[in-house]
């Protein structure tokens, strides 16, 4: 379902990764590893379509992917339910409030986003992934600021709900989620220094 062929991506005009290739079928996950600055976020942003690749191709069904960044995109003046309802409506999905239980947010449903702790915000950000109904998820450090219990809860949702229903996930993370998923170390794909990114020429 997701085919990545010879992908090269750049950050700030300098190539960071080159020739990344992998294939994922429905129900599979891939964990991205590598030292800080290797280009995990850049790779995920390129896959999600926020920046164009400098070489190679990403082949996947249209309107199937979703992206979750370091920032959760939570509106501080909206309540937990309103935040989720907004994203569900943008993606044209009905809002199933059972998701509040899967992410332990039921008690917080009427709290404003601004009053949540960092971990609670993250849980809300992850719950967004469950309400938008997308099959292919690009997750950038999804477990930052989560406690051990919440990490387990998220891993349970990912394995038991998302992947079990034929979803795909590409996850950049440093901790072990306990997923039955292959690990891709990005270190061998590091671009040789001095190879140009050429982003500006490409779009001007």
């Amino acid at each position, binding site marked *: 379902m997701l085919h990545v062929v010879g992908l090269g991506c750049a950050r700030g005009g300098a190539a960071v990764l080159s020739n990344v290739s992998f294939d994922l079928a429905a129900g599979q996950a891939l964990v991205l590893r590598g030292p800080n600055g290797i280009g995990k976020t850049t790779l995920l942003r390129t896959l999600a379509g926020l920046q164009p690749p400098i070489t190679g191709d990403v082949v996947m069904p249209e309107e199937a992917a979703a992206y979750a*960044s370091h920032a959760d995109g939570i509106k501080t003046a909206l309540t937990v339910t309103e935040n989720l309802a907004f994203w569900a409506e943008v993606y044209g999905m009905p809002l199933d409030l059972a998701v509040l239980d899967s992410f332990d947010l039921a008690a917080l449903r009427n709290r404003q986003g601004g009053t949540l702790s960092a971990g609670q915000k993250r849980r809300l950000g992850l719950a967004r992934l469950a309400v938008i109904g997308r099959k292919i998820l690009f997750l950038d450090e999804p477990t930052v600021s989560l406690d051990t219990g919440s990490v387990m809860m998220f891993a349970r949702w990912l394995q038991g709900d998302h992947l079990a229903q034929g979803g795909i996930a590409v996850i950049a993370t440093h901790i072990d989620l306990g997923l039955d998923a292959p690990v891709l170390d990005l270190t061998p794909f590091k671009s040789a220094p001095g190879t140009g990114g050429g982003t500006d020429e490409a779009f001007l």
Partner: protein
Amino acid sequence: MIALLKRDLRLALRAGGGFGLGLAFFLIVVVLVPFGVGPEREVLRPIAPGILWIGALLAALLSLDRIFALDFEDGSLALLATSPLPLEAAALVKATAHWITTGLPLTLAAPLFGFLLLMQPEAYGYLLASLLIGTPALSMIGTFGAALTVGLRRGGLLLSLLVLPLYVPTLIFGAEAVRRGAAGLDASGALILQGGITAGCFAILPFATAAVLRINLR
């Protein structure tokens, strides 16, 4: 699109100041003018249309930098860019929400402020019409400017420098329509030209705004 519009309006209401701030600023500008130039009818009456239009323009400018900055900071702009809603539509919605929270209240309150500047009664209708036709263009141009400066710290001043020159045609025809109305002349030409500018802005700028956002989000 409706979801984003509802969210933005709700945020403007809850965050406070969305509706009131621009209006209060407009009021203060209008009240300050008689202190500056004197309260005589002969002095105020001829400059009233120009003052009202410049006041409306500055009030619209006040809240421009918030259009995209907050969404950019909390990450929801990147999430919106990867959502099924095209960025062009998001730009259009953002401009519309800005107009509903600033342009529309300004338009509705303007006749009252015209009274403060001793404007001729015949000109009220033209003031209302020209603001109604012209302020959407201010919001759309401003949205484009906000997209250009979205990633910058303290982009507010740069935004004003970029956007104010683009406001000139709307200002000229807007103030001209009110002036002609006050003098009892035919103002339809100025109003039609203003409508043309607004329609042109809404036809072109959502695409330009989306292109600029895509570059700024890389």
